[in-house]
C-alpha cells in the first residue's frame, strides 16, 4: 500500500487532533470525506460505476456472462472478482508491484460479496444445474489516497445497482434439452436486488481512538485497523483485522459498534443518490473521466 513518510512532530499533531475529535482536514472521527459517484460510465459493460473518495478513485465494471452453476450450488449464480492496481494510481504499482495488494483486495471481496446473504445469487440462476449468470466484477484503482476498501465496496454496490442483465427465455426443446432465447429488445432486461449488499467500513486505531476513512497520513500513524462489512440493517457480515499492532478486546468491541453505526448510515444516502441519478434517465449529464 502506498504510504507517506511522516516526521515525529507531524505524527504527534495528527494524534492530538484525533484525540480531540478534530482531524487535520477538519472532519470528526466518524466522518467520511467527500464522495462522488457516477454510474453507467463504461458503455460496453452491463453495469459500471466510478467512485471518488477524497483523492482515492476507483472504477468498477460488471460484465454478465452465461456459465454453468458450481456443483456445490446448482441453483445459484456466482461472482468473480479481479482488482487491477493500475500504475496510474501510484508508481509503486508499476510492473508487478500492485499484484500483492490486488490479490489481498480480491480475496477480501470474495469473502464479503460472494455469498447469497450479500448478493441475491438465486436470481442469477437461469436453469438449475444448467445455466446461470456469472458476474465478472472488475475493479480498477485509478488513484490511491487511503481507504481503498470502503471506496471499492461503494463502487461495487453502485455498479451492481446499475447492472442490467439481458433477459433470456428458456424454452423446453423437444428432446428435453433446453433452448436459450434472447429477447431482441435491448431494454428488456433484469436488474439485481442490491438491498442486502454490504458496504465495508475501515476503522483505524490511531492512539487511543479510532477513525473511519483514514487519509494516508492518518494511516501512517495507525498501528492496526479493523475492516468490517456492514449491511443496511446494521449487521456485520465479515470482519478482518489488518496491521501489526494489537487491539485489546474492549477497543475491538467499541470499534465494532462504531463500524456498525457508520456502515448503517452509509447505505441510506448511497441508495438515495443512485435512485436519483437513475430517475434522470437520458437527461442526465454525463461527466465521465474528463469532467
Amino acid at each position, binding site marked *: 500500500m502506498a504510504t507517506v513518510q511522516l516526521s515525529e512532530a507531524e505524527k504527534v499533531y495528527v494524534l492530538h487532533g484525533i484525540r480531540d475529535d478534530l482531524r487535520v482536514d477538519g472532519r470528526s472521527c466518524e466522518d467520511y470525506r467527500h464522495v462522488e459517484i457516477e454510474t453507467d460510465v463504461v*458503455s*460496453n459493460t*452491463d453495469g459500471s460505476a466510478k467512485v471518488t473518495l477524497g483523492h482515492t478513485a476507483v472504477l468498477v465494471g460488471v460484465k454478465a456472462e452465461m456459465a454453468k452453476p458450481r456443483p456445490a450450488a446448482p441453483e445459484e449464480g456466482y461472482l468473480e472478482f479481479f482488482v487491477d492496481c493500475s500504475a496510474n494510481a501510484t508508481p509503486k504499482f508499476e510492473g508487478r508491484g500492485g499484484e500483492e495488494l490486488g490479490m489481498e483486495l480480491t480475496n477480501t471481496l470474495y469473502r464479503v460479496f460472494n455469498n447469497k446473504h450479500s448478493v441475491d445469487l438465486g436470481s442469477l440462476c437461469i436453469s438449475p444445474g444448467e445455466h446461470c449468470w456469472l458476474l465478472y466484477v472488475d475493479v480498477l484503482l485509478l488513484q490511491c489516497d487511503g481507504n481503498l476498501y470502503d471506496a471499492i465496496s461503494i463502487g461495487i454496490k453502485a455498479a451492481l445497482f446499475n447492472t442490467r442483465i439481458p433477459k*433470456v427465455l428458456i*424454452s423446453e426443446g*423437444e428432446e428435453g434439452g433446453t433452448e436459450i432465447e434472447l429477447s431482441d*429488445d*435491448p431494454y428488456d432486461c433484469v436488474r439485481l436486488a442490491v438491498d442486502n449488499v454490504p458496504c465495508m467500513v475501515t476503522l483505524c486505531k490511531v492512539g487511543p481512538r479510532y477513525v473511519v476513512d483514514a487519509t494516508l497520513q492518518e494511516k501512517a500513524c495507525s498501528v492496526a485497523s479493523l475492516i468490517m462489512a456492514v449491511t443496511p440493517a446494521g449487521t456485520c457480515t465479515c470482519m478482518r483485522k489488518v496491521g501489526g499492532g494489537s487491539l485489546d478486546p474492549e477497543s475491538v468491541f467499541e470499534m465494532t459498534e462504531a463500524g456498525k453505526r457508520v456502515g448503517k448510515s452509509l447505505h441510506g444516502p448511497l441508495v438515495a443518490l443512485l435512485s436519483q441519478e437513475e430517475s434522470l434517465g437520458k437527461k442526465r449529464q454525463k461527466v465521465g473521466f474528463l469532467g
Partner: protein
Amino acid sequence: MLRSKTFVKKTRSGGIRKIVREHYLRDDIWCGSELCTECKQESTVLLKDACIESSLCTFPHYLIPDTNVVLHQIDVLEDPQLRNVIILQTVLQEVRHRSAPVYKRLKDLIHEQEKHVYTFTNEHHRETYVEREPGESANDRNDRAIRVAVDWYNHHLENTESDGLKVVLITNDQGNKEKAEEGGLLVYKCEEYVKSLLANPELVDRLALTNDNKNDISSSKVLFPEHFPLARIQAGIKGGTFLQGTYRASRDNYLEATVLLQGLQNLNRAIHQDVVAVQLLPREQWVAPSSIVLQDEREAKDEETTEEEEKEQAMKNIADDAARKPTGRVVGIIKRNWRPFCGMLNSSLIKESTRHLFTPADRRVPRIRIETRQASSLADQRIMVAIDGWPRHSRYPNGHFVRSLGAAGDKETETEVLLLEHDVPHQDFSQAVLSFLPKMPWSITPEDRAVGVHIADVSHFIRPGNAMDLEASNRGTTVYLCGRLQSLFATLQCGEACFLFVINSKASLTYAEAQLRIDDATMNDDVTSSLRGLNKLAKILKRRRIEKGALTLSSLEVRFHIDSETHDPIDVHTKELMETNSMVEEFMLLANISVAQKIYDEFSECALLRKHPAPPPSNYEILSKAAKSKGLAIHTDSAKALADSLDVAKVDGFPYFNTLLRVLATRCMMQAVYFCSGMDSDFHHYGLASPIYTHFTSPIRRYSDIVVHRLLAVAIGADGTYPDLTDKHKLSLFFKSRGLLNEEGFILFVRKNAIIVLIPKFGLEGTVFFDGKDKTGPKLVFDEEGPTLMVEQHTFKIFDKVKVTISLDDSNIQHQKIRMSLVEPVIPGVSVPVPEVGPLSKKPKLDR
C-alpha cells in the same frame, strides 16, 4: 456528434455478449434534390419536375418506399417509369439483411442514372436519426425512422421554390400507414399508388400479390399442413427429429422428390431447390420410389383433388419391404430459393378472367398462379414470373409477371430461356473486360521449334484479377448452343489470338482431311508421313492405356447441319469418330497427364488436378441387371475387368447393343471432380486409368485450364460443365420444321407406365406413355425384377428394338415437348399407324 448503439447478441457458442458500436451523426448529409438551395451538394440526383401521371398525386412528388415494399415489389420499382425515388439507409440495410438478391437489384437500381434513385443516409443524419425506445421492437423503430425521414424531407423541401412538390411514403403496413397519416404525412399503399398511374396500366401486373388479396384468389379450403416456426425447426434439427436438406424435385414425377418425400401433402409447398426441414415418417409408412412417370397435365381447374388423390394412390405401389426407402414429410421451409422462372402462360378458360396459371419451363417447379390483364398478348410468348408466396389453402403458389422474353418457338427467345434457366451468365462483355484484349496484330518472338503438343497460353493475356479474368472465372466454361457460343472470353481472343496463327504452320487440317491423308496410300509427303508416325504413336499410347484398364464409354454426341442463311438447324447426325479424333485425343491426354505430373511435382500442396473416383459397386446394379437380361455377365471388380467384359459383351445380330451397354455404363460412373492436391491423397482417374490427371489443353473453353496454365507457367514458367444443357431444345426446333418422323430406337429403361426409348440417330431419349389421359388405358403388368412391362399381349424388355414416331407436341403450347408414340410392335389400341413423312418445305442443304 457521437452516439453509441448498443445491442445484445447471442454468440455461436451459446454465450451472450453485449456489443457497443460508435455511431457518428453528421450535419453535412445532403438531400439530393435539384430544388434544394440549402444543401451544398455537388451533384443532384432527384429531378426538379418529378412528374408521374398519377390520379392520386397530381403534383410533382418523390417516392419513399418502405422495406417491405422494396422486398416484395422490386419488380415494380425497377420499371423505368418510376423515377425520383428516395431509398433510405434504414430500408437499404434491412433489405440487405433480409434478401441478398433483392439487395443486389436495388443496388443496380440506385446506380442506374436514368432512374434518379437517391440513397439518403438518414441513419447518420443528425436530424433523422432515431434511437430505439424502451418497449419498441426493431421493426417499429425502423418504421419510425422512415417516418421521421419523410417528415424531414417534407419540411426541408417546403422552403424551396417547388410548385407543391411533396414526398410520398409508400407502405403496405396498415399500422405504419395510420401512424404516418397521424403525423400528417402523405402515404399510400403500393397497390393504390400503382393503380393510380394512369399512363401505365401494365405495371399493375407486376405487383406482387400481398396478403390482403390472397383470400379471394383461391378457395378457402386448407390444403396444406402448417409450417413449423423456425425456432422449433432449429431445435428439431439440433435434436435430430428433423432433417435438413435441399429439396430436389424428381424430373419424372411431379409429386415425388428424391426418395424421401411423396405426395402433395407431404411436399407441403416446397419448391425445387428450397432448403427444407423434413420429418421422417414411421417405418410402416415408408414407400418405394414409384416407377410411374407423372406430369402435371391437368387443365387449369382448381377442384380436382379427387383425381390428384387417385394419382397418389397409384404411386403407392405395393412394394416389398426391401425396396422401401425412408419417407418423410416437409415440416418447414428453412430457406426459399425462389428465382424468377421462365415459362408459358396457361390462359384461363374464362375469357375475362385476369387470373391465370403459369407453367414453368422447368418441370420440377410447380405451376404458378398469376394475375394479368394482358393474357391474350402473352399467350404465345415466353415470359418470366416470380413467386410471391404460397398460402396454405392454395393448390399453386402465387406469383407475378416480371417480363416477356419474346415469342415462343423463336430461336432467340428459346436460347434466352435456356441460358436463364441454367443460370448461364450471358451478358455481353463489358468495356472493362474488352479493354484487356491485346492490340492486334500481335506476334510472338520466334523460337526453336520442337515436336510436341502446343497449347496457346491464353493465361498470358488473362492476368489474374483483371476484369476479363473475373468474368471468365464467373462463367467457368464455354457453353455451346445452337448458333450461339457463350464463350469464356471476349471474342477477339477466341477468334484470332488463340489459334496458333503465329506459329509457322506447315498445314492446317481438319480431322477429316488428316484422315484422308493417312488413308490415301498414294500420298507420301512430309506432312502425311509425320501424320502416320503420330498415328502410330497414338495407337501405342492407347493400347497401353487400355491395358491399364481405361474405359471406353459412350455418350452420344450429335452434330447439327445449320442452314447457312437462316442459321436454323436442318439436319442432325450422330457425330462420327475418326481415327484422327482418337489420335488428337491421345496426345491431348498425354499432355494433360504430363502437365499434371509437372505441376504436382512443383506444387505438391496446391496443384489443380482432376480425379474420377471409382464408383461404389451398387452403382453397377442397373448395368448388371441389363446385361443379365441378354444372358451376359459384367464384371465390375476393377476398371480393367469392366473394360474387358464390356468389350466381349456382344449380341449377334444386334451390333448396337454394345454401344447401348456403354451408354448405361456411363450412367453408373461418378462425376469427375477438380480438386487441390493438398486436400486429398487419392488422385486416381478411374475412367482414364491414370494415376494423375488435370485439364490443360482447352484454356479457351475452360477456366480450370487457365489456372493450370498459370501453375505451369510458374513451374517452368468445378465440374463446371453443364450436364443438362444438351441440345434437346434445338431438336425440338428441328422437329418442329420436320414434322413427324419414323425412327428406330432401343428401350433404355422400363418404367411402370412407360418406356424410355433411346434413338441412336439423334442421340435422343424420350418417353412412351402407355396410360392415356383417358382412364381406359391398356392393361399393364409391371415386373420389377426384369424389369419388364407387359402391355396387353406384348412384353417390353430393356434393349428391345422398337419403332416410334417423333413429333413435336404443340397442342399444349405452354410446354412444347417431343412426343414419341409407338409404331412397332403393333399393339391394338396403343400403337399408332405409320405416318407419312410430309414433304419438306425447303430442301435441306446438307453440310455447309
